[in-house]
């Protein structure tokens, strides 16, 4: 009886996402990949529900931009700025400006230099998400990404 309930739970998780309310239509996940020369790349992925979109780091309206802030630490250093894939662009006639945005999913990358054996990169990201009828206020998400 319990096993079948568990399988039903799995079915629910994949079939009816809408049943579980989430405060924001954007889910974030993180990964770090080490490369040569004591460097690593951080991947910060946003998965966006249908109909919603988040905005590029440098597209048009400042208040809408997705931004990243990494905490100062001695055991790692940022190399360059956070990069992102090419965004979609459209002219918002209501705002009389071009906006650059992402739908469905987007992976931001940040190169870092590692100065110690055990490194955990902490920081926070901020984003605004909108759909056709409403905008949700800018949200701050804290992250902590360990590096092997």
């Amino acid at each position: 009886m319990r096993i079948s309930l568990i399988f039903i739970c799995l079915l629910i998780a994949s079939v009816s996402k809408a049943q579980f309310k989430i405060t924001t239509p954007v889910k974030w996940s993180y990964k770090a990949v080490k490369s040569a020369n004591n460097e690593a790349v951080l991947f910060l992925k946003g998965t966006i529900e249908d109909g919603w979109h988040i905005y590029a780091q440098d597209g048009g309206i400042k208040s809408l931009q997705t931004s990243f802030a990494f905490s100062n630490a001695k055991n790692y250093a940022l190399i360059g700025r956070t990069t992102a894939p090419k965004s979609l662009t459209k002219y918002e006639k209501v705002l009389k400006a071009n906006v650059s945005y992402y739908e469905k999913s987007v992976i931001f990358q940040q190169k870092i230099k590692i100065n110690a054996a055990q490194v955990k990169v902490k920081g926070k990201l901020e984003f605004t998400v909108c759909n056709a009828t409403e905008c949700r206020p800018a949200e701050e998400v804290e992250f902590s990404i360990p590096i092997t």
Partner: protein
Amino acid sequence: MKRQNFKEILLFLICFNCFGFASAQELLKGSLTLKSDLNLASQKPWKLVVKRSDLGGYSGNSDTILVKGIALKYKTELKEPCYLSVDFYWKDRKFTTYSFWAMPATYEIGFTNNLMPMITDSVISQVTVGIEHLIAQHIKYAKEAERVVGDVNYENQKIADVETKIWKIRDSFENLIDSNIYLSAVNKNPNSVIGLYALLKFAERPYGKARTINEPKKIDSLLNTLDPTIKALPSARKLFSTINLEAELKVGNAMKDIALPNAVGKIYKISDFRGKYLLVDFWASWCTPCRAEHPNLIKIFNKYSNSGFQIIGITRDQPLRKVDWLDAIKKDKIDIWLQLSDFNNTAQKVYNVEAIPVNYLVNPAGIIIGRNLRGEALEKELKKNFKK
């Protein structure tokens, strides 16, 4: 000999309790431990991500653990039961995941041949069983609804009629889900987290017309039927503060008064406008859907402002972006009505402003007569009141 027997009996009793059933009053807060003997998997995972959502379904924390060794252990403190996802990452295949309702207890995780995680040992929790049962029931009704909808006859019917029929079917099933599953579970489980879970679901439904907004008194009275220990849980407290806020903001209540500055710092109060019909509109320069409403608001303002209708725009723009705010007012030509800023987030707190646009229509006596009226709906409500 006697002493050895006694030791064996004691050991047996201890072991029996380790793998027994949870008692009627389960621990609702405390440590959650996930354990896994990784020798049992055909490969070793290199990373585990544990994600938690609370009883109301609000996503919360995410913890990443880099796997070292063969005995995996994760421990965290829970203030109430939660919904847990464990994602295992493997070197040469896609990550596998498993989700379940977790109590503050210990869970042993094993793997199928396909490296799918599963719970191999835990205390059987009445709370978990109860919540899973409600979920299964919901799915059953939802599937039945779709089956009935699928049977609707399209032949020789007007599309509008068929769509009306389908909406009626969907609505009636939603009502059944609400009464037979959730409301019923609240009534039957006032002393259990199951009752709280059901109430949280009941309160957020129906979709688009949440009861927290439209029937806060009903939710409040249901919340009060729950046991004090359940009412003290974080999710219950969150529901309580939401409905209190929403109850105060509903149609029929007095609009709460606040004072905010305009662009040059002059302070205005909502109550300054008693005697007029007032639309309090929350927007921001960066909010496309908000600004898309402005042409319509201008039309309505021009039509009714001489008859005693006013609009107050309150922006959610942040202080550093004051220029964008002023620019938007100019561009959209909405300087014809009062524009106030909320740089200290006073209005945001008082009116629980989350998503925008959101607006309140207030009558001359200061009572809220409409909420989130846009486009035609706003025009209709004003026409009604100005006819008198």
